[in-house]
């Protein structure tokens, strides 16, 4: 039996019950729409998290002296010659930054806090969150700038402000304590408060002078694209052979785990929604088969093969699914275009920032995800038609004609 004839029959069956099938179409469209919207949010959170982790002074790959991660002190620093930037995979690199990062204690007139004291070259920090932060006051000028910049949350906790002096105590290279007063040049504001509570920055040369060691404790590199990470890791492992070279996934295993989990979360969400939907689809198809017992019996009686009956039901289901998915995806794409690129949840829940979670999500719609949804929906459509098709085949022509 030619497939066109079967398709024609299926289409007619769909058109025959417009209202019922329209309802089903809407249900599929809405389900696909929700899946797609959830997808943009999950993808947004996933990529935001990666961006945050990478720009949170990690870079895509970071180099430490051996033992620094267990005992982060200036004694675990390493020396860098001038023009130290490795000239490898140059086109894949967005930027390099060398820093000192050591634990310290910061004091204001009223409060004392533990911090990570970070010496930076401001010119290199285009690769970290510092370049995107908002400043009250000003950012650091040069690597010998002896002022500090602190986070907004830290400024609140210390009850201090731009222009004030804070006392910072840390350990020098000889193991003895160094304490000195530092003027606040600026107060930075980032998404979430976790970073603001930890990092205090000054010029790297100024910090080297304070601890009496011309070393850095870390070098991080940011790549143009995540895809270059593996080849870069390979090159760096050879270039910094006597140092520890680690990816952001190794440095922040929790973030890396979430990044992977988000991948499965997308599938999980799809399966939950689609499983709910499939019952509706099966129900409708079974009904439509039961309504046509007489007709199907007649077709069988005049010689239609069971395989053709199955095909007919499968085509019907696939048709409905296809139109529903197309409708849902189009609708979703339109809504995505209308939505602002950044979903700002801060007006709904200030608590987000308190937990250190960013309240802003940069929505993302991947074409690959749309293809994935389409393919998986089709598979579901075919699966959903199997049971109704079986029912249709089971109709005995003799009994059906007697009805």
């Amino acid at each position, binding site marked *: 039996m030619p497939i066109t004839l079967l398709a024609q029959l299926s289409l007619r069956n769909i058109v025959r019950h417009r209202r019922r099938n329209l309802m089903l179409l809407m249900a599929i469209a809405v389900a696909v729409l929700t899946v797609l919207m959830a997808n943009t949010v999950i993808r947004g959170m996933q990529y935001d998290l990666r961006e945050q982790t990478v720009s949170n002074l990690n870079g895509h790959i970071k180099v430490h002296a051996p033992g620094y991660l267990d005992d982060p002190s200036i004694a675990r620093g390493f020396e860098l010659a001038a023009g130290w930037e490795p000239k490898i995979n140059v086109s894949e690199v967005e930027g390099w930054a060398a820093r000192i990062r050591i634990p310290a204690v910061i004091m204001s007139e009223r409060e004392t806090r*533990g911090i990570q004291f970070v010496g930076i070259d401001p010119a290199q920090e285009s690769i970290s969150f510092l370049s995107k932060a908002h400043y009250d006051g000003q950012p650091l000028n040069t690597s010998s700038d002896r002022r500090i910049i602190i986070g907004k949350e830290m400024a609140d906790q210390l009850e201090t402000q731009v222009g004030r002096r804070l006392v910072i105590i840390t350990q020098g290279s000889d193991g003895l304590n160094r304490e000195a007063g530092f003027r606040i040049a600026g107060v930075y504001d980032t998404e979430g408060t976790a970073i603001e509570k930890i990092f205090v920055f000054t010029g790297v040369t100024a910090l080297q002078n304070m601890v009496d060691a011309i070393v850095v404790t870390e070098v991080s590199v940011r790549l143009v694209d995540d895809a270059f990470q593996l080849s870069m890791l390979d090159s760096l492992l050879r270039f910094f052979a006597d140092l520890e070279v680690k990816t952001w996934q190794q440095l922040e295993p929790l973030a890396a785990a979430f990044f992977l989990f988000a991948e499965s979360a997308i599938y999980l969400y799809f399966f939950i929604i689609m499983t709910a939907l499939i019952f509706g689809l099966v129900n409708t198809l079974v009904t439509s088969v039961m309504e046509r017992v007489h007709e199907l019996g007649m077709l069988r009686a005049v010689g239609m093969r069971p395989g053709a009956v199955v095909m007919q039901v499968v085509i019907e289901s696939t048709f409905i699914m296809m139109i529903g998915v197309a409708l849902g995806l189009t609708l979703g794409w339109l809504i995505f275009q209308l939505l602002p690129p950044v979903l700002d949840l801060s007006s709904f829940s200030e608590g987000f920032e308190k937990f250190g979670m960013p309240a802003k999500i940069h929505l993302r719609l991947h074409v690959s995800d749309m293809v994935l949804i389409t393919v998986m929906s089709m598979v579901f459509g075919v699966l959903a038609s199997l049971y109704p098709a079986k029912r249709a085949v089971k109709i005995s022509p003799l009994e059906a004609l007697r009805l």
Partner: protein
Amino acid sequence: MTRNLHTRIDSSSLIWVTIVFSLVGLTFTDRSHAAEADITAKELVEAAIDQTRGISSYAEFSMVIHRPDWERTSSLKSWTRGRKDALIRFIAPAKDAGNATLKLGNKMWTFTPKLNRTIRLPYSLMSQSWGGSDFSYTDLSRSDNWLNEYDLSIASVTTEDDHKIYTLVAIPHDNAPVVWGKEEMLIRDDYVMLQHTFYDQSMEPLKTLETLEIGERDGRMMATRMRMVKLNAPEKYTELIWGEADFDVELEDQMFTLFYLKSGE
């Protein structure tokens, strides 16, 4: 030609000599001016600190921690050596007896007999309260970082009951490890510290150590009752009341050791 050149050199070097001399003269006059004020202010503080210490000292005092709903009195003994080393030990009440703090130079240790442990105080704890009082460890340990980290000046001199009272203002240097905006001290001409006020960097007074009674101990006039109070909570304060005090006493060097801190007495 040669002679010409010579004269030219001579005249130019003469000008140099004049400039150099006038510069030196300037710095000399400048120095002597600043030095006079500087040394006096510095001397005052040094003398005031030494007044309660001497080359060495032994003192018995009690500490009253006052809160709106309770008050606690402890007895303590202290020994000091020079301006840098000190040992303070709680004698009473029984619950605190034996707790001791040792300061050597810039380092501090505490000893708690109940735990039988000495703890080297990390810098992060230095601004914490000492023994639950309104004094911080920094208040105890600070002594002569004064002299290096501040610009000291005498703001005014007043006369009261046949005594001159100097108002000293100490403004920390820009990079000084000092959180205060300024400190202000009232010191009497016999080196008794009358008041010591700490200002934040918007120049609001935050806390003050004031002398409530003055008396004579071992031939020296000194503050015998002092009260530390945070100005935003005047109902909470800590008082130190001096009992016996001896100055320039013979102290064994072993008193200022970790071993002695632990052995207690």
